[in-house]
Structures are given as structure tokens and as C-alpha cells.
């Protein structure tokens, strides 16, 4: 009789934010601290002051090599040892912007040193060499659901027998190019974000972030269930007004929850329309589940947010307390929005969701094994 394969679990997970590692970040959020500070949107070139959360000591402006490389190397030191990128141990590198600020710096300065970090493939190759990985490295980039996609592909690789264990590394570090882009969309301005709160106008903050997860069969304390991704294919920057994109993506996680008591770690950037839709559909899919979001403190860490916030969600379950929704003032968008910290011991798991430009949505149910 064929043996049932051991379930795939998260064998290791960690992150780095301006507050520090996952434990330090969780503790800071529990204390209600805000990592966002007003920074000129174009760095040395000035511009409007906007809320950004940068790694301590790292300027917004690009350098060659990138100033964020030390943060990624520091994070990589916490990886389980082994020959990552060798056969059976693939690496999935995910992010939204990679070193794109380097291309902007290249264009402005003409300094060729920026070139090798500017594009996705070259940036990843530089990283692969810096971290001593083998050649089996894949790149996944789909805006703010990039990390979720990495987790899904890593899961599928193991399920298909193409990997014994898989590493997902996700990172996004800010630059004048990235901050300027969101500023030009009028969603990054001088206001601090207030996720899931009603106010006259919405605003986001942006943050540096990096995280990793190692997936393996039968090892680790955490399971990912009901991994779902869905693209509503509606518009670059807006969602269907009926919330169907959010609803559709949550179906898999809701099915996996199957009546179990869960809390909801949402995307919650601080924009109004998306926040309202997210609260409405999360409340519908998981009635009574407290909804929380942490981008009001960490800023939106873009392509890395799914994995950065997964690491903090794990700390929340491990410690027995989850940070409430941090942000500016305003009435909550729904009764389920948790403005205060809350205990996690009475819950069976947490649904983690992210949403992205282009109408992409992703979610999964995280449970302790």
C-alpha cells in the first residue's frame, strides 16, 4: 500500500523590518509603535515628505551595491544550513521591485555600477552569487502577491516531487523611483495611513522588508492550507466594485477553515475603496473573525508583504497575542476590524491575505501543526 506523504509544512520562517527580526517586529507592533517617518519622496532630490519605513541607517537613494544587501545577507544567516539552489533544494526569489531603483539611478548618473542590480534577472543573479546559492533559482514577481505565489510554487514543487525542500525569499526595498511612482498615483502623500478606517482621503505608507520561508515535508510546526490566488482582470489599479475579486480569492481559505475559528490578517494599505471591499468580503467569508492589518506601522512592504506578515503572524500565534490594526484615526470600516491587540489562543488559525495592482488577490490559512 502506498505511503501517504507527510504533509508540507513551514520548517523555518523569518523576516526583517525596520524594527528588526520577526520577534522584535511583533513586539513593536504590540506596543503600537510606528516605523513610518516622513522622508522626502525623491530622497536627495527632495520632494514632498511622505511616510516611509526605511531600515535603520539606510538612505532612500540607491547605492551600488545596494544599501539593502546587508539586510538580506543578515536575514540569510538565519536560513537553515544547506546547499540552497542545488538539485532538490530550489530557491524561489519573489519581490515586486527588486533593484529597479538602480535603473533610475543608472539613468540619472550614468554610473554603470548600478546596471548589474537594476533588472530582475541581474539583481537575482547578483544575490545568488552573494549568498552562495546554486543555479536552481526561480524568480516570481507579481506585485504585492509575489510572496504568496512563491509559497504556492514552492508547495507545488514539493508536491510534484521536484523538490525535497524549498526556500522562498522575498524582499522589497524602497528607492526614489518606487516612492515617486506611488506618489504620482496620489496614494502616497503627506498623510500617514489609517488602514480599515473611514476618512476623507486614503493614504498609504511604504516600508522596507524581507522575509524567508522554508517548506518541507513533515518538518516544522506550521501548515499552509487553502492557498488561493485569483486575478479579477478588471483594471490596473482598481477592483470590481462588487468585491467579487476579494470574495473569490478567499473561497479556498474559507473552505480550508471549514468552521474552525480563525482571525484575519488582511492587506489593509490605507486606501479607502480596497479597504472597504476587503473588510466587507473578509467579514462575509469569516463572520466574527477579528480583522487586523499592520501596514499602518510597517508601511506596505510591497512584494515582500505576504511573507513578512506571515512571519509576524507566526509570532502572534506563538506568543498568544496579535497586534491590532495600527494607523491614524478614523471610524473602523466594520465591526470586525480589531483596533486593539487581541489574544490568539482561542483561534485555530489565521487567514493571511494580500491584494495587488492588476486585481490580483492571494490568501491562505496558517495553522499550527
Amino acid at each position: 500500500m502506498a505511503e501517504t506523504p507527510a504533509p508540507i509544512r513551514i520548517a523555518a520562517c523569518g523576516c526583517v523590518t525596520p524594527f528588526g527580526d520577526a520577534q522584535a517586529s511583533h513586539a513593536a507592533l504590540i506596543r503600537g509603535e510606528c516605523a513610518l517617518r516622513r522622508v522626502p519622496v525623491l530622497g536627495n532630490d527632495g520632494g514632498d515628505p511622505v511616510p516611509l519605513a526605511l531600515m535603520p541607517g539606510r538612505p532612500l537613494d540607491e547605492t551600488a551595491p545596494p544599501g539593502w544587501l546587508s539586510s538580506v545577507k543578515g536575514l540569510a544567516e538565519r536560513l537553515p544550513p544547506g546547499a540552497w539552489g542545488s538539485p532538490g533544494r530550489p530557491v524561489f526569489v519573489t519581490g515586486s521591485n527588486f533593484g529597479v531603483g538602480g535603473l533610475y539611478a543608472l539613468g540619472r548618473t550614468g554610473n554603470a555600477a548600478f546596471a548589474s542590480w537594476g533588472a530582475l534577472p541581474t539583481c537575482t543573479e547578483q544575490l545568488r552569487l552573494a549568498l552562495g546559492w546554486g543555479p536552481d533559482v526561480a524568480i516570481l514577481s507579481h506585485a504585492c502577491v509575489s510572496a504568496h505565489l512563491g509559497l504556492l510554487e514552492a508547495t507545488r514543487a514539493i508536491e510534484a516531487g521536484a523538490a525535497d525542500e524549498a526556500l522562498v525569499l522575498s524582499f522589497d526595498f524602497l528607492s526614489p523611483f518606487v516612492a515617486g511612482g506611488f506618489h504620482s498615483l496620489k496614494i502616497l502623500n503627506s498623510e500617514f495611513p489609517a488602514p480599515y478606517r473611514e476618512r476623507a482621503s486614503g493614504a498609504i505608507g511604504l516600508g522596507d522588508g524581507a522575509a524567508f520561508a522554508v517548506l518541507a515535508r513533515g518538518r516544522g510546526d506550521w501548515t499552509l492550507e487553502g492557498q488561493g490566488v485569483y486575478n479579477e482582470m478588471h483594471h490596473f489599479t482598481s477592483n470590481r466594485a462588487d468585491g467579487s475579486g476579494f470574495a473569490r480569492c478567499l473561497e479556498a481559505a474559507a473552505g480550508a477553515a471549514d468552521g474552525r475559528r480563525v482571525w484575519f490578517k488582511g492587506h489593509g494599505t490605507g486606501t479607502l475603496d480596497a479597504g472597504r471591499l476587503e473588510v466587507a468580503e473578509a467579514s462575509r467569508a469569516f463572520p466574527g473573525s477579528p480583522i487586523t492589518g499592520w501596514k499602518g506601522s510597517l508601511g506596505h512592504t510591497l512584494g515582500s508583504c505576504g511573507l513578512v506578515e506571515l512571519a509576524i503572524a507566526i509570532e502572534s500565534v506563538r506568543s498568544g497575542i496579535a497586534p491590532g490594526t495600527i494607523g491614524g484615526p478614523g471610524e473602523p470600516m466594520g465591526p470586525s476590524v480589531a483596533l486593539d491587540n487581541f489574544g490568539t489562543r482561542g483561534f485555530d488559525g489565521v487567514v493571511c491575505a494580500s491584494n495587488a495592482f492588476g486585481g490580483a488577490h492571494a490568501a491562505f490559512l496558517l495553522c499550527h501543526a
Partner: protein
Amino acid sequence: MAPASPMPDPLTASLKQLIVDTLRLEDTSAADIPDDEPLVGGGLSLDSIDALELVVRLEREFGIKIASSEEARQALASVAALTTYVRERGDPSRLPS
């Protein structure tokens, strides 16, 4: 599309032409754009990306500063709303006389 209203002032006419030029509306002339029709989601079928292009052009042309997407939405509610917005916030030296 409903017939356009007569263009009452130079700023309104200028804004309608700016819309046509900025968005490269090949099948629409400035005179075709009604004063009170919604610019986004109305007969012109403009979307949020078109709105963003208009915002950038308006800021450059008239020296205004639109701080948020909600403020942009209000300013672009219609040509009439946009005329009022630009007249109130624009650099007077850049407004058509």
C-alpha cells in the same frame, strides 16, 4: 453622447481641449464634451489611469497640487467641477483671460 453645452468661458474651453490633447481622443472634439457629464466613468469612458494623466498635466499646466486620489476624483467629477477647482487653486497667471 448628449449634445455639448455652449462653452461659457475660456477656462472651460481650455480644459476641454486639454482633455482631448492629453488623452489623445481622436473621435472627440472639445466642443463634444458636455460641462456636467462625469469625466471618469461617463461617456468619455475615462478610467483611473486616464485620470492620472490628466492630473499630471493639470498640475504642470496650472501650477496646482492635487494631494490625493480622492481629491482628484472630486476635481474630475465633471468639466464644470474641474473649471471651479482650477479657477480656485490655479496660478492666476496661468489661467486664460
